[in-house]
């Protein structure tokens, strides 16, 4: 009885479905090609999707509130170039990292204020900021890449600790913190409540506006961290970085079982969602699928994954 009910709970949890999809994809790849299950490949895939995942953690919180953040890709780029430029200008490592993170938070704050005070729909506000942040990245760099010469800075993206790439460790740490934050803190619980029913949360004494602002600030900060880590990995910060990442991060959250209507979503689901896309990209490369086809296949898989989840929910109801 107890066993069967816990089995049922695992099955009906939204994470289960996507985890099965991920496992199936990996199994199929292992059969199709012997290049997939090699240490170098696995490490590179995991490192690859850890950048998007970090960003998707923030996106996940935003989507749980029923909002959306289209500006993360541009904030990713802006924060990384500002951070790299301040480093190049002679700022100490810690300061350059903090400046980058602060940029992300500042844009998040602007989004939060526009959404709560000016009452702009999140789609509009973040669409505008997406353009503003991208434009500013071009403006401050005149379009030139900013090279990173500090080895310490590069460690963040290129280094390894006990054989595990630093960005992966960073993701694990941030995911653990975010998961505990969302599931167990007062603020996290309020995020779910306001996404589930904003009016009821307001009547229950939740300061809706404050919670939303914090969520967008956190989302901006996470986009900045992802941007800085990516620049560090590549040894160069580019104003063109992160284009289209906003859509990848949204896709990761949605594949991971969150509803765009708000109120549901988990960090674990989001990271599995990001891994599905990472594994898929890698698979298409390993299988020598033309780059032109990859985009279409990824889109197809996103729809398939979310549709299956939807059908499963309908069957349950």
């Amino acid at each position, binding site marked *: 009885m107890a066993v069967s009910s816990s089995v049922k709970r695992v099955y009906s949890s939204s994470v289960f479905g996507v985890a099965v999809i991920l496992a199936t994809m990996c199994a199929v790849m292992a059969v199709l090609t012997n290049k997939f299950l090699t240490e170098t490949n696995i490490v590179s895939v995991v490192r690859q999707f850890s950048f998007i995942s970090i960003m998707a953690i923030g996106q996940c919180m935003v989507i749980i509130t029923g909002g959306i953040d289209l500006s993360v890709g541009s904030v990713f780029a802006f924060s990384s170039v500002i951070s790299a430029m301040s480093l190049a200008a002679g700022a100490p490592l810690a300061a350059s990292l903090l400046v980058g993170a602060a940029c992300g938070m500042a844009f998040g704050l602007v989004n939060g204020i526009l959404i709560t005070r000016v009452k702009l729909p999140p789609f509009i506000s973040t669409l505008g900021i997406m353009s503003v942040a991208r434009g500013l990245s071009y403006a401050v760099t005149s379009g030139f890449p900013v090279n990173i010469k500090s080895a310490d800075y590069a460690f963040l993206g290129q280094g390894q600790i006990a054989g595990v790439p630093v960005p992966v460790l960073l993701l694990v740490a941030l995911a653990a913190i975010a998961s505990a934050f969302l599931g167990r*803190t007062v603020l996290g619980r309020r995020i*779910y*409540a306001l996404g589930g029913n904003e009016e009821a949360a307001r009547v*229950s004494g939740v300061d809706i506006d404050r919670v939303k602002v914090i969520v967008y600030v956190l989302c901006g900060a996470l986009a900045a961290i992802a941007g800085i880590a990516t620049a560090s990995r590549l040894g160069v910060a580019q104003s063109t970085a992160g284009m289209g990442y906003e859509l990848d991060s949204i896709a990761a959250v949605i594949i991971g079982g969150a509803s765009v209507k708000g109120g549901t979503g988990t960090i674990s689901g989001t990271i599995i969602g990001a891994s599905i896309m990472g594994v898929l990209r890698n698979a298409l490369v390993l299988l020598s699928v033309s780059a032109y086809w990859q985009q279409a296949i990824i889109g197809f898989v996103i729809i398939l994954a979310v549709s299956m989840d939807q059908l499963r929910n309908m069957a349950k109801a």
Partner: protein
Amino acid sequence: MRTDQCLLKMEGISKTFPGVKALDQVDLEIHRGEVLALVGENGAGKSTLMKILGGIHSRDSGTIAFEGRPADLRDPAHARRLGISIIHQELNVMENLDVAENIFVGDEIRTALVFVDRKAQVGRTRELLSSVGLDVDPRALMKDLSLASRQMVEIAKSLSMNAKLIIMDEPTSSLTERETERLFRIVREVCARGIGVIYISHRLEEIFELADRVTVLRDGRTVGTKELSECTKETLIAMMVGREIDELYPKTEGRIGNEALRVEKVSTASLLREVSFAVREGEVLGFAGLVGAGRTELAKVVFGLDRKSGGDIYLAGKKVSIGSPWEAIRLGIGYVPEDRKREGLVLGMAVRGNISLSVLERLKRYLFVSGRKEKELAEDSILRLRIKAQSASQAVKFLSGGNQQKVVLAKGLATTPKVLILDEPTRGVDVGAKKEIHSIIDALAKTGMAIIVISSELPEILGISDRIVVMRNGRIKGELRREEATQVKVLELAFR
């Protein structure tokens, strides 16, 4: 009666919703070219009856004859085809489309199959508007029209669909006196063409001015139909009251203490006008009145959900400023909203998550909300209020209405308020749960809590309150002690 031809005859109509018998053997008859007023207290069954006419609900039993032929009214499209048109209180207009587009939406005049014939639509609209005496450009956007003009556009739309019966639900609730006059003139013109109008209103004066006959509903039954020339306001009120009290309210005498909350001359920009009242510890203060009288607005101002434009609020004699619900909660005010699905519950969340929502800070252990403390709170509430749930972790959307209501109540009580405001605490719950909620209210008052109950059910208000305040049009119209309050007295204050 201008003509003796029967337009619609409904006989023995019954309708049961889960747990509630909404209509019980209702009869209604309307003639061509007459205005039939339909009156009754909140919840008497007017809306359900009209929804059956509109094909929105299907009846359980009874017969309907329209123009002498049996009519099934299976769905709204069918009702429309027969010529039955409903103008709802909340108008369903497309604000960003123009008048002509609103009139012809779904039934566009076309040229060559796919293209809308704008010119023909505008021309036809102009004719329709002038036939109802409305001087509005057919190309004006709906959102730029006054409420009264929108009402009249809706009437014009009914005419364009060749309606033979038009049902108007509280059409004047937000109109000025002059607009109302204009509307009445048009209603009379429409009737002169042989169209029947069913006119639902709480405003008895209007009914006497406009209608030929009146049908009174009470508790889902027809009390009677009268020629208005043969009756007075008092007879109508007498017909409306006398709702059966189908259960005993376990009201017991408690000790009434010091003043807990005093509201002085509170007004809002939209509705409330200098509302003053006070409630004491251990007292149950009932708020009676019709829907729209301003009772919920008042509750929302006291709870910090809406802004007041003037007046003061005192708690235990001290003037307080309440700018938000969390301030209200901190000051010891609890609020159980009237619409539990919209404002009370996060339906997808568990019982425990809903109950703890207002007190998460208090359940904190170091950084995190303590699962143990939360579970204790939830299980304690489940026991105390006898909430029927599989466990504290069950999602509230799977509970019955009565148990959902108890969860909202539990959430309000978790903040340990000194003043508790309950807005329609038993709406849509079954009789058993209703009785339980009443005894909970009684027990809470005994602990010294000051309780304000807003209810549209007269027997409930009369049964549980120590004192009753009656509101109308944003004002307090009178106050009755428990001993002196009767249904007739309350209704006389509530109706104009």
